[in-house]
């Protein structure tokens, strides 16, 4: 795990920044969100993929790609959370003029 993180640190940082931007925008985004049911299914899918990765059931290169995808998805989520949280704080301190 440490080896993978060290080896792909650039890509993970990229994912984190991408997540930060996505989270930053999400606070003020007015478009449709993901419904709760879809979110539930997506979580199940993510959990299934994580389980498959941990159980090492997918062999060879696809197995590696799954690991890499999940490893990039994690900093993306963290980036989203930080981005949204910071944007939210920024908005509450300087409420936009109505």
């Amino acid at each position, binding site marked *: 795990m440490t080896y993978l993180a060290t080896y792909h640190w650039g890509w993970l940082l990229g994912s984190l920044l991408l997540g930060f931007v996505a989270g930053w925008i999400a606070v003020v985004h007015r478009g449709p969100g993901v419904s709760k049911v879809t979110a539930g299914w997506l979580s199940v899918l993510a959990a299934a993929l994580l389980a498959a990765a941990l159980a090492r059931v997918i062999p060879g290169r696809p197995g590696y790609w799954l690991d890499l995808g999940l490893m990039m998805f994690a900093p993306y989520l963290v980036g989203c959370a930080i981005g*949204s949280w910071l944007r939210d704080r920024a908005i509450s301190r300087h409420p936009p003029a109505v």
Partner: protein
Amino acid sequence: MHGLFRWSSKWWPGTIPLAILWGIAAWSNTTALESDLAARSTAVLKDALLDKTQITVDGRDVTLAADAFSEDGRRDAMAAVEAVPGVRLVNDETRLVPEAKPFIWWVGRDVVRVTLGGSAPLPASKSKLAEAAHAALGNVEVVDQMNLSRGAPPRFDDAALLLIDQIGKLKDGKITISDNTVSLSGMARDLGGREAIDESLKNLPEGFSVASDDIKAPPYVFQAYKDPVAVTLTLTGYVPDDKVHSALVAAAGRKFFSEKVVDNLKSSVGAPSGFAAAVGPALGALSRLSTGTLVVSDREVKLSGDAFYDAAAVQIRAGLGKGFPQGWQFKADISVKPAQAPVDATVCQQLFSDLLAKGNIGFQSAQATIDSDSLGLLDRLTETALRCPAANIEVAGHTDADGEDSFNQTLSEKRAQAVVDYLVKAGLPADRFTATGHGSTQPVASNDTDEGKAQNRRIEFVVK
């Protein structure tokens, strides 16, 4: 917290560039990561005792194919690769090197190359043996056909190295180790090579024994050539040691009374047993030939040449093999020298005198038995007697002054008679010869010295 849930429903648009980013990462990193894992897996197995190691990496999964030399070695190699950071799974395609039973290793030599074959226990010992063969054999091509197998006897390497040293002493042949017995066959390069190998085999490591030793030595050759034109006897080839050497040269000097002995003999081990006992009589037979060659090859004696007269040829053919040690063979190819032109009595006398000036007919001490060393001279005298068929010949015996006169008188008569008997046996008519004895009454030299006495003990031929 509630806000985080709310916002998260709108995080999805970022997953599209994330997926693209993921694709690019996978595309650009896969091969590099695979080679990095392969390099580091190879590095951890650098010192492992494995053969035919093959590492293939697919994603993060490593497939390890190798031949291991023990179950522990196999397990350790797997564990080492599993412990490489970044490796997700190791597919085990290792196997144990097959066990050879019996464990056979061999080194063979022919005209152009040395071949190492059979089983070697470890890659290290395999290369060590091949290197030793290169070092021991200089420019000879070394072909390594060894496989790797388990089941080598203890101290195998030491035994094999010792045997590789021995293959250098062979012209062709094969040395085999089967478990802990050694078999050898082939032909030694030099005389004495077989003995040198036998000596080295005593240093085989403990536990090894020689099952069969069929190393043959090159023929042990001794040659003697009697040249009537140059009046020489040339000795070539080998003799066992200096003692036999000097004894043979001395015997040749006695038997070949008129020839100069050219001694080109060399000492070497490896002589067949009974060498001196066979070569001595064979040289005696050669001394009775006018011209001839004696070739002794191992235990085979070949004598070819011309005898002075028919009866001599018959006697040589029949007589020689009898005195040989057991196991020796004798081949005679004896023809008879063409009879020489008859001469008159004066020339005949001159020929007798010339011959007897060069050599003296010897007898056993105080007896009338002709010394076998004198047969060559007697045959020359017989040949001369055959050339003057009209002449009557008196054979006169003389002794030195030692002992009583009556004894010496009788002895000189008996000795003269023995010579006459020899001539008659050779086919000359008995009535042409008279045997007379003079005892010590007609000395030709002083009887005070040994040399003088030897000159006085003589047989004279007087043509009447």
